[in-house]
């Protein structure tokens, strides 16, 4: 039986805590070939750009939203689409949290819409998102 039979609107997705440090941010931007100084040059980020610290790369926060979805899905379904926006910056030293919930579902087609978030320590949603996943349709 498809797992969608047991899913209902409001079901939470497991939360996960992230504590990105300089090493992770360096490796991420190296993997991209992204040399933007706001991610590794502390004096530049704070004194020239006026940020309070080194800025976590926006697409890394988006990646964490996709991880929230695919770990919840397991091998039961597929990620079909994701949409998110980076509304507020996050900085090295912050503890962030990903999570979400089921917004709606169509059992006949197997389609499930999810609401996603990255929150900061102040419990502000800094990266909201929506994903659509697909489970095998119910018979």
């Amino acid at each position, binding site marked *: 039986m498809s797992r969608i039979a047991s899913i209902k609107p409001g079901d939470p997705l497991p939360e996960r805590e*992230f504590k990105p440090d300089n090493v*992770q941010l360096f*490796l*991420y931007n*190296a*993997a*991209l*070939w*992204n*040399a*933007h*100084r*706001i991610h590794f*040059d502390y004096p*530049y980020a704070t004194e*020239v*750009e006026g940020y309070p610290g080194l800025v976590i790369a*926006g*697409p*890394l926060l*988006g*990646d*964490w939203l*996709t*991880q929230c979805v*695919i*770990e919840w899905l397991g091998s039961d379904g*597929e*990620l*079909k*689409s*994701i*949409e*998110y*926006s*980076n*509304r*507020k910056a996050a900085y090295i030293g912050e503890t962030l949290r990903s999570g979400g919930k089921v917004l709606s579902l169509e059992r006949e087609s197997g389609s499930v819409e999810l609401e996603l978030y990255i929150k900061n320590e102040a419990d502000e949603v800094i990266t909201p998102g929506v994903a659509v996943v697909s489970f095998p349709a119910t018979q």
Partner: protein
Amino acid sequence: MSTLLTSDLLANIGRSAPPRKELVTRRDIRKYAIATGQRLEKYLAGDEAPPMFHVALFWNVVELEKLTPDGVSIDSLLPKFPLERAMAGGLKIDYYRAIFPGDVLVATRTLTDIYEKQGSQGPLIFYEVIMQVESESGERVLTEKTTRILR
């Protein structure tokens, strides 16, 4: 009513950058998976690429002297906008199939829209870029739409 978007600027809508072709390697998948904190073994082993691996695969690889002083590469697809300070951006990705080591993928980026809105502190310019990623044989892999806001 629009004050910032000249007809010359709007004429850039529809422009595409030359297609870029990249080979997906297990090593690059592994590096991306570790850097992003993936926990699924298929990603950490490089057997399959995580959903946002294409961001790294198609990030522009530019020479050092072509970076601006702040370390950013200039996107030749974009015209010079009258507003330059970038605000929050958004991304929408539609997936058609997973990416695996050995795939040769082709990405084509097109500037699909430029529009203006009035923000609370002045005008804002929005632009959208769509990147189509396909296999060499033309099979759809994913579509990514990026929206950026300038103030």
